[in-house]
Structures are given as structure tokens and as C-alpha cells.
């Protein structure tokens, strides 16, 4: 089948998609966007998290056919010409990245949290990130990164909303 959809602001069209393919597969293998990761492909790890019409979803659980004419933002779409998004920069600065396999999913999830909640409390951060597994870091530096990103976003003139799609 043919899929036409919007990814990171650009209209994309792919052909010969098999009905059983997930959005994750189509992004990774057919659109050249391997940033979303495939750690479990059954909705347990969050490494494949993307925005679908502004809502966070596990792209491994979304059938490719469901995304026709919808709006997708992946980790590749978070930074712009001005550079990294503050969430991304905070992950680097706090040492929240080791192997980095969980990172794209966590970055997108944290981005979503900070779009909803300007200054999340620690329990709110933990709850929001509970669906994202990381095997390397023990999560402590990931918490640091989200706190730092929240602070930095609050300091930017436009506030957090200014940097979010």
C-alpha cells in the first residue's frame, strides 16, 4: 500500500508498504529515519516514542496504515537550525546518555512532559518517564536532565511553549 503522511513538517510518501508493518518500521526502514529505536517492538520500552498528531505514542504499536494524512514528529524533528532542543542539550550536559539506545525515546517523552508541565515535580517526572526503559544509567542522570531542561526552558524568553511544536 501507499502511505502519505507528514513527518517532521515534510510531506512524505512511501510505496509498497506491507500491511503488517508498524509506523516504527516505516520510519526506520522506508523513510530513512532510524532515530526512533526498536528495543522491544511490543510497547514495553518507549524507545520508539514519537508524536502522532501531538500525542506521544509507541510507534511500534501503530500500524503503518493508521498514519495516513496525519502529523508525525520524531526525535530527528526536535532540533532545528538553531541547534539542539534544550531537552537534548540537557541530556548531554547531565551525562544522561550512555549507550544512547533509550535516549531518543526518552528525549521525546521528556519533551512531551515539559510541553504539558512547565516545572514537573520529581514524582511527576518519574511517572511521565515510567514507560521508558534504560538499562545503562539507573535513571538518576535522566532525572537531572529533565530538571535542568525545565529550568532552562523557563529561562528562555518564549518559555517552554516557544520551543515546542
Amino acid at each position: 500500500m501507499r502511505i502519505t503522511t507528514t513527518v517532521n513538517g515534510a510531506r512524505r510518501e512511501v510505496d509498497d508498504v506491507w500491511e503488517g508493518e508498524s509506523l516504527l518500521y516505516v520510519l526506520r526502514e522506508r523513510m530513512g529515519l532510524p532515530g526512533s529505536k526498536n528495543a522491544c517492538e511490543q510497547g514495553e520500552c518507549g524507545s520508539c516514542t514519537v508524536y502522532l498528531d501531538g500525542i506521544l505514542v509507541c510507534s511500534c504499536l501503530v500500524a503503518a496504515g493508521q498514519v495516513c494524512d496525519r502529523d508525525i514528529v520524531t526525535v530527528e524533528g526536535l532540533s532545528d537550525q538553531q541547534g539542539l532542543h534544550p531537552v537534548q542539550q540537557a541530556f548531554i550536559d547531565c551525562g544522561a546518555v550512555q549507550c544512547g539506545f533509550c535516549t531518543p525515546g526518552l528525549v521525546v517523552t521528556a519533551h512531551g512532559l515539559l510541553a504539558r508541565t512547565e516545572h514537573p515535580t520529581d514524582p511527576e517526572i518519574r511517572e511521565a518517564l515510567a514507560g521508558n526503559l534504560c538499562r545503562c544509567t539507573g535513571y538518576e542522570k535522566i532525572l537531572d536532565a529533565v530538571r535542568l531542561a525545565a529550568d532552562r526552558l523557563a529561562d528562555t524568553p518564549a518559555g517552554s511553549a516557544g520551543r515546542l511544536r
Partner: protein
Amino acid sequence: MTSAPTKVPAAPSETAALRGRIGDSPLRPDGTLKVQGEFAFGSDLWADEMIWGVTLRSPHVHARIVSIDVGPALATSGVYTVLTAEDVPGGNVGLDHADQPVLATGVVRYHGEPVALVAADHPEIARQAAKKIRVVYEELPAVTDGRRALEPAAPQVHDGGNLLRHLKIRRGNPDPVAPVVVSLDFEVGMQDQAFLGPESGLAVPDDAGGIDLYVATQWLHADQRQICQALGLPPEKVRLTLAGVGGAFGGREDLSIHVHACLLALRTGKPIKMVYNREESFFGHVHRHPASLRYEFGADHDGLLHYAKAEIVFDGGAYASSTAAVVGNGGTLGLGPYNIPNVQVDCYGVYTNNPPCGAMRGFGCVQAAFAHEALMDELADRVGMDRVAIRQLNGMREGDRNITGQLIDSAAPVAELLQLVQDMPLPAERLSEDEFDLLSLPGGVSNTTHGEGVVRGIGYAVTYKNVGFSEGFDDYSTARVRLEITADEPTVTVHTAAAEVGQGLITVEQQICRTELGVQRVVVHPRDTQVGSAGSTSASRQTYVTGGAVKAACEAVRAKVLERASTMLDLELSELVLDGAQIVSITGDVVASLQDVLGTDAVDETVKWSHRPTYPIDPETGQGDAHVQYAFSAHRAVVDVDTELGLVKVIALDTAQDVGKAINPDAVVGQIQGGSAQGMGLALMEEIVVTDGRVRNPSFTDYLIPTILDMPPMKIEVLEYADPHAPYGVRGVGEPPTISSGPAVAAAIRRATGKALRRVPIRPEHITEG
């Protein structure tokens, strides 16, 4: 960080402006790519004309292969080839013993053993075709219990018996007696490394019968050796490059897709991509050995240890992998960091028809630590002593000898580490029932308790672990360092084959080059087999061994540059110092620029570097200098347990560790946090459930690892007692936290519940039953 007396050699170059030397915490060079999703993991690779490979695995635990019919699979549209054992040109593979066929040959020995391969133009077509391969099996009796495997009547997994290794330690009085005797039996379940990035790689055939393999792995050269063995090709025809690695923790030390992808690529002439899904990943790598442990300690009434006896059985599963070395660790280190004059240890590694087990972070020490730490608590209670004090009383100190008679010839701060964790502030008491926060209670937002039935417990544990490969292994690394002027700037390129698996070795290599050569710009070359072996990224060894090699290569480069300068300027070599972009005299005057000395040349040196030797232990007494270095850590866990439901919430997990010298303090802390989480996972939730040899839970739905809700905040104290034998005084960091965290959590649960809890992971029913 607490700085202890250190003996770090003075850095040769003191350019103040230099950022990111050793002891700093520069950011990792791959961080930007990783946060953008642009970093290429093995599973992200792509090549023109690429097709997909999949594996067909055994549904049986032990069976004879009567016949294989690949016809229907081969006839599937989109399928390029189907391969079986007949198509493997070379021999068996294996890390220590080459006992494992690349594809099952005549017999399958475990559930999940690879039997056949399919290449097709879509992964789903390949998977569907694999299901069409008709394999006729005749089931054989299986042995699926480690202790039973040693009985004479047990089914044999391989010719030559089920015993892989028996390690004996006999020290002191063979018939010791003591006024206080405590004993226990302990069981440890099978833990999985559960790295997030599944096994993956891309094999690209060349026109001359050779192959380039891009793969996520821990030891490129051990892979290369085994691939050559299996393909019957010389090393120059099998070139490996490290693909991005999504975590490892021991699970990538053995082969996975390597030979399979190469076979398919050589047969089809097309690049082959293989990526396991999570289910296959559970079958596709070795696990931590399940262990059955029987311990007895004898002490005097004041708690001073007089003797210890231990019998440990590691279930190695169907193939050897690194079981012999795990037995080496479990046996020589399995009584913990304590002084014990009289010792009898029997440590066995056995073959069974369970999934193969091998390396995982902590390597043989993890299982033993649960037993010796539980028994130390028991002894403390029996003699009426504080649980920390009894460990401090018996703990090793520098200058002591361990149970193999090896002198502990650098810091052994057992008592101090325990004191540090004991003195850390405790978390606040549980909030009262009207101001509680569900997230801080056992059961969390499942809302299973508002505090009723919840009891708190505190537990302690301490460990020591060898760093590097032991028992006489030729453990070395190779580094190539090149210094040149590019775009008017001095540039260092560092090239090693050491696998970066997320731990941050590439950052450490940059830091060492900056420190040794005074050059800001350090480029890390992709890791491949074009340079000599770096040994394995395991045993907490790379900062020590590859760090040592990089340091030595930098020194060789520095010497070459100064020789050149000395000849050119006609000045005494001993009067010259390399300081970044300049050659400086000992009086501090700039005598030449690096540009003048080098021109357009590069100085390029390769050094193979070994740590001081280790030795085999005596086969009868187990005595010998088996290990190169020891690393120590202690944990304190605080838990709340819902005693009615058996649910546990870890409230705090605090630790102190001696790292010798923190080359990158932030990365050290990251290792301690991540390692502690894995140890806690084994204590509480992580187990591959194997019933009669069959894996029951190969998914992240059923195999649980800690989430951000499970992991408590950690207080961490890092000591830096330099090891005078190691480069910069470093001590391995990665493994100790995984060893002492789990036993501390288990101890805290025992303390809270009063239950014996002689098995991990501790499940709710263990807490609630009886």
C-alpha cells in the same frame, strides 16, 4: 569526591587552557548524535542492495535432528537462500572452548539453538519462510538442573561428561572447628543482560571472497578469530568494524549474528542485515549463570571468622562460553572481602540443556555475594553483633592475603566503605497515612496500600571483584596514536579496537591523549580490526588496559617528537618538553613550534600494552596470584515492604566505592548508578524463567527490569586510593556496584520481614508465604 593519598604520575604537560584532561568530566563525543537519533547503532545500518537474514531456532531442549527440508522455504518468493549446518565451511566456535556449532549439527542441545538461516528481501518474508523449513526432531532425555548434571546417570550434553570445571581451594586446617557455626543454601536465578539495543549487524561481501562485518559487540578480535574459524577464511578476509552498541553488560562477548550474517552474505553476494527482535534476543545471547550455593562459616563468639566452606554450582547451560572463567571468579572470590584462615571451596561449572550462560557484569561474584552476605548477617545475629561491625572486623586490609594466598598489595578499604555508607543520612521516615505519596509506597499507583502492613528494613553488603582477565591470561590492549598538524592545529588521532558500549571509553581515550600530549583536539578513530586487539570490553578492564595502552602510545609519540626536535634544534633531548603546540626547554622558553618540528609529517606510534602478569592457581589447593587488581564497593539499601502483598519499594540505595583514580568523575558516577540498578533488579525482579529447559518469559512484558519508578535516589561516595601498579592509579569501576547492591537489597528485605529469603529474585510469594 573524597581524595585519598594518591600517587598519580605528574602530567607532562600543564597547559592551563586545556579542557577535558583526566580528572575532568568532559562530555562524551557521541552525545550530540545520540540525542538527535543520528548515531548509527548496528540495527540502523543500511547498504545498497541489502537483504535481511533471520534465524530458525530449536523448539526443543535436547533432540536429534532427523532431517531438514528447506524446499518450501526456498521456494518462497523473495527468499534468496536457506542455509543449514551443511553450508558451514569451518569448525565450531566458542569464547574459551570451541564447542558450539554455528548451526546445530545433528543435535540440538538447548531451546533456542540456531538450526537454519534464511535471507530474503523483507524481514517478514524471511521469518515466514523460516517457519516453512521442515525439521524433524527426535527428542532426547535432557538434564536441566545443575546439581543433577553431576550425577553419573544424568544425560550427557557433550561427549566427555557434564563437568566443565571444578575449582578447589584448600587453605589452612582441613578439619576446622569453631564455637559458632552458621550455614545456608542459596539459589540465584538466571539474569539477563537486557541491553536495550538488540543484537544486530550488517555483513557486506567483497569481490574477492572476503567480508566486512559491522557489528555491535564487546571484543572485535575474539569475534574475528571465531568467524575465521567458522568460515575457514584468513583474518585479512574477515574485517570487522564496531557498529553502535546499545549496551552490552557481558551479553555481547559471545557471537550472535556474526557468522550467520557472513554466511548469508557470502552465499548471496549481497549485504545482509540481521537484527534480533526482543524475543530472539533472549535466545540469542548467554545469560548470567544460575547458581546453587551451599555455605558454612565458623567463627568465635566475638564474630571473628575462623573457617569457611563453600560449594557452588554454576549452571553453564548447553555450551561452555566463559563458564570456566566464571568458575574461576566464583571460586577464588566467592567468600567475599574477608580474612578467613581456613578455607575449603569447591566450585563447579556444569553443562546442562538449559540456555548457555556466560559473561554478565559481576561475572561469578554476583551469585556468591548473595550467599556470603546473607551468611555474614546470620553470623552477626548469632553472636549478637552489629551487621556492619562484623564485616569491618573481618574485612580485608591492604597487606592481607586473600583465600588464594594472594597479597592484597593496594588499598582494601572494606571497613571504611562500610562506615561511609552507614554514616550517610537515612531517608525520612515514611509519611503518615494522610500525607503519603502513593509513588513512594510498595505497589505505587496501583494503590495497594496507604501504609498499612508496610515495614521498613535496612541492609548492608560489601564486595570485592577482580579487574581484568585472570589466571595467567595474556591480557593486553593495543593503541595507535598519531600526532600531526591539520588546519594549523595539532591534532591527535587515537585508534583502538576497544568496544565502546556506552560506558564512555572513547571519552577516556580523549582525556588520556590530552593529558599526555597537551593537545586539545583528539579524534577517536572508528573501532575496527585494522589495529591490534584491545581485549574484551568486560571485567571492568578497558580504562585500565586500553587506557594503559593509549597512555603508552602517547608516551612513544612524545618521545619521537622530542627526538626529532632534539636533532633539528641540536639541543639535548633531556632538556625538551612537549607542551601542546610547542616544544619548550626545561627553563620554560619556547624553542620551536610543533609545526616547525613536524611540518607535514605525522608521528604515528602503535603500542601493545599488558598489565602485570597473573598466574594459574594450583589445581589442588587453589593457591596462586590469580588476579591483577581488586575493586571494592559497599551498599546500604533501605526498603519498605508490604508484608501482606509481598511488594517491595526500595527507598534508598546508597554506596561507596574505591575507584583508584576517577579519570572521568561524572562517568564513574554513571557507572555506579547503572550498575547498582542491575544488582537491585536481580534481587527483586529479574529472572529468565526456565522450566524443564524451556524459556518461559522472553519479552520485556514478562522479564522485568527496573524502571525509573523502581530506582530510588542514590547517595554515592567515591574514594580514590590509587593503585600504584595501574596507569594513573585507576581501579575498574563497572562491576562492583552490580555485586554489592543486590545483596544489600535482599538483606534489607530480610531485616524488614524476618524471613530467611534464600533465593533471588525475591518474589512477592516468598515474602508472604508461610
